[in-house]
C-alpha cells in the first residue's frame, strides 16, 4: 500500500507533441483516483509514465516515498490492467496469473495458494485451465484483474479496462471493481473517457484536457462546482446547457438575458458577477435543474421555449427545446405530456446557475 505523488510531470514525444503538461497529483494511500478526459488528452501517457513504460521528459513520480523515475517497471511494485487485457495467449489462465509470481521467484505452494485465492475472489475457478481464446470478453477481463491482484502490488493501474465490454457487462464489472477495491484497499489509478465510470468509481476524479489537469475533486464536487466550462460540460449526462447572455442592471438586481430569456440572478451569485455588468458571459444550467413551470413560478426565473424533440427514457423525459436563437435540453418528469412544437415555460433552479467567463472559461 502506498501513496503516489506526481510532481510537475511533463511528456514530450519526439520533442514535438507535448502530451502531458505540468501535471501535479497527490494520490493518497488506498485511494481510487480516476483520470478522465476526451480522447488524446494524455491520460494513458500519464499512467504509462507512472508504470515506467514511457520515459519522463521532466518532473517526478513518487511511489511510496521513493522517486521511481529511473526504476524499470518490474521494480515499481505496480500492476497494470490494459484495455485489450494483454493476456498471454499461449498460457492457460492459471499460468497467466502465476507468471508474475514465477518471475519473482515465489515458492510453488505460495503461487498456488495466491492464484486460487484470487480466482475465488473473482469467481473464475472453473476457468483456470482454459486458454485466453476460449474465454468471453467479461471472463478475460476477470483474468486480467486476477493477474493484477495475485501480486499484491502497492498500486493498481487501469487503462480503460472496461471499454471493450458491452454496456450491461460494463455496469456489472464497474460494481465489481468498486467492491474489489473496497475489499483490497490498494491504491488505484484508473483511466477512462467515460464520465459515468469516473463518477461512480472514483474517490476523487481528475479531469484532463490537452495534457492539462482541469480540476481535481470528489465526484459531487466536480458536478456541483465545476472549475471551468470544460469540466461543467464534460461531467454530467446529458451535458450542461450553455447560453450566451449579457448581464444588465435593473430594479436593484442583476439580470442575465439574451434574445430568448431573461433571468434574475439570485443574490449570492450577483455579488460575483457584478463586475460583468454590460458584458457578455456564458450561463450554464444542467438539464435536471430545469422543469416545466407552473403558475407559482415567478416569471423572472423562467422562460419560454419551443419543444423540438421529445426523448422518452422511461425514468425521465428529455426535451430538446429552442430558446430564442439557442437550444437547450431539459430533463422533466416522465409524466409530462408535451409534444413536438408545443410552447412550454421552463423554470430554473436558481441555486444551481453557473456563470463562466467568456475569455478564460473559468467559473465565476
Amino acid at each position, binding site marked *: 500500500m502506498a501513496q503516489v505523488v506526481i510532481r510537475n510531470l511533463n511528456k514530450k514525444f519526439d520533442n514535438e507533441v507535448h502530451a502531458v503538461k505540468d501535471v501535479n497529483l497527490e494520490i493518497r494511500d488506498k485511494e481510487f483516483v480516476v483520470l478522465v478526459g476526451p480522447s488524446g488528452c494524455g491520460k494513458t501517457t500519464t499512467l504509462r509514465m507512472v*508504470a*515506467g*513504460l514511457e520515459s519522463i521528459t521532466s518532473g517526478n513520480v513518487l511511489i511510496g516515498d521513493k522517486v521511481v523515475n529511473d526504476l*524499470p*517497471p*518490474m521494480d*515499481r511494485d*505496480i*500492476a*497494470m490492467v*490494459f484495455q*485489450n*487485457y*494483454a*493476456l*498471454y*495467449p*499461449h498460457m492457460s489462465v492459471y499460468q497467466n496469473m502465476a*507468471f*508474475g509470481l514465477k*518471475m*519473482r521467484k515465489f515458492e510453488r505452494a505460495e503461487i498456488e495458494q495466491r492464484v486460487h485465492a484470487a480466482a475465488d475472489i473473482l469467481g473464475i475457478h472453473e476457468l483456470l485451465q482454459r486458454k*485466453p*481464446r476460449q474465454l468471453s470478453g467479461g471472463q*478475460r477481463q476477470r483474468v486480467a484483474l486476477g*493477474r493484477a491482484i495475485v*501480486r499484491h502490488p502497492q498500486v493498481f493501474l487501469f487503462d480503460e479496462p472496461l471499454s471493450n465490454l458491452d454496456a450491461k457487462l460494463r455496469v456489472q464489472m464497474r460494481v465489481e471493481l468498486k467492491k474489489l477495491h473496497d475489499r483490497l484497499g490498494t491504491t488505484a489509478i484508473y483511466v477512462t473517457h467515460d464520465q459515468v465510470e469516473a463518477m461512480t468509481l472514483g474517490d476523487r476524479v481528475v479531469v484532463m484536457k490537452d495534457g492539462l489537469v482541469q480540476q481535481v475533486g470528489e465526484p459531487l464536487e466536480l458536478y456541483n462546482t465545476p472549475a471551468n466550462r470544460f469540466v461543467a460540460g464534460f461531467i454530467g449526462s446529458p451535458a450542461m446547457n450553455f447560453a450566451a447572455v449579457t448581464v444588465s442592471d435593473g430594479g436593484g438586481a442583476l439580470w442575465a438575458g439574451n434574445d430568448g430569456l431573461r433571468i434574475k440572478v439570485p443574490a449570492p451569485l450577483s455579488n460575483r458577477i457584478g463586475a460583468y455588468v454590460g458584458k457578455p458571459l456564458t450561463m450554464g444550467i444542467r438539464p435536471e435543474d430545469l422543469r416545466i413551470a407552473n403558475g407559482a413560478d415567478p416569471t423572472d426565473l423562467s422562460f419560454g421555449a419551443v419543444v423540438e424533440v421529445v426523448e422518452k427514457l422511461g425514468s425521465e423525459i428529455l426535451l430538446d427545446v429552442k430558446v430564442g436563437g439557442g437550444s437547450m435540453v431539459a430533463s422533466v418528469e416522465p409524466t409530462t405530456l408535451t409534444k413536438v412544437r408545443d410552447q412550454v415555460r421552463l423554470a430554473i433552479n436558481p441555486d444551481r446557475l453557473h456563470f463562466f467567463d467568456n475569455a478564460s472559461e473559468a467559473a465565476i
Partner: protein
Amino acid sequence: MIEGAKWKRWVFFYIPLAVFIFSLLFPFYWMIITTVRPDAELYRPWNAPNYTPFWTTRPTWEHVDYLLSETLFSTWMLNTMLIALASTAISLFCGLLAGYALSRLKFPFAGSLGTGIFVTYLVPQTLLFIPLADIIRNFHLGDTPWALILTYPTFLIPFCTWLMMGYFKAIPKELEECARIDGASRFKAMIYIIFPIAVPGILSAGIFAFTLSWNEFIYALVFLSSPEQKTVPVGVTSELIRGDVFFWGPLMAGALLGSIPVAMVYSFFVEHYVAGLTGSVKG
C-alpha cells in the same frame, strides 16, 4: 463461398480452381511419369505409332537404380541436407534477434537499418557471387560445405529478419509491457512471451529458409567443384547432362527424390506454416 446461380460457382470457382490445380500438379506428374518410363519409350519420336506421352504401360525402376548406384546422389542428398540445416539454423538465430531488435527497440537509425537490410536482400545473387567467390578463395573455403553454409545466410538473414520483423510487429506491445510489469526483464519477456507466440512465424521463416537453401543453384555451382561435394540441384544437372545429352530418366528421378524432403518439411509444418503466413495472433 460464392453466392448465387450454379453457373456462377462453376465459372468463378470450380473451373479456375481446376485450372490452377492442374497447372500446379502437372509438372509433378510429368516428373513421376518420366522417372518410371523405360528408355525405349522416352526417346521414341512423337510421330511413332505407339507414342503415349501421358502414361506408360511398362513402368521401371531402372532410372532410380542408375541414379542411386552410378552417381553420388546419396552423397549429394547428405551434403544438401547438412548445408540447408546449418545455414537455416544460423539465419534463423540471427534473423530472430535482429527482427526483434528492429521491431521493438528504439535506437538511432533503426528504420533506415531495416530498409538497408531489405535492400541487401534485393541485390541479385547473380551479381553477388562474383565478390563472394573472391572472399571464399581468400579464406580457402572453396569446394567445402562451409562455402555455402556461410554464404547462404547473406540472403537468408535479410529474409528471415524481414519476415520476423513483420511478425513481431503484429504482436501487441502490451503483452510485453505487461510481462515487464509482471517482473520479467526485456530478455525474459522475449523468451517467455514473444518467442512462444511467434512460433508460427519462426516456423515459416525456417521452412522458407530451408527451401531456399535446398534449391539454391548459383552459389553451389560456382563455389563447389568436386562431384562428392556437390548439392542435389548442381549434382543432378552437372552429372546427368553430358554435353548436349540429357539423361532424362535419372534427371527426373533426381528431381523427384530431391524434392521429397522439402515436401515432407512443408506437409509436417503446414498447419503452423499457414498460420504464420496469415500472421494471426489470437488474444
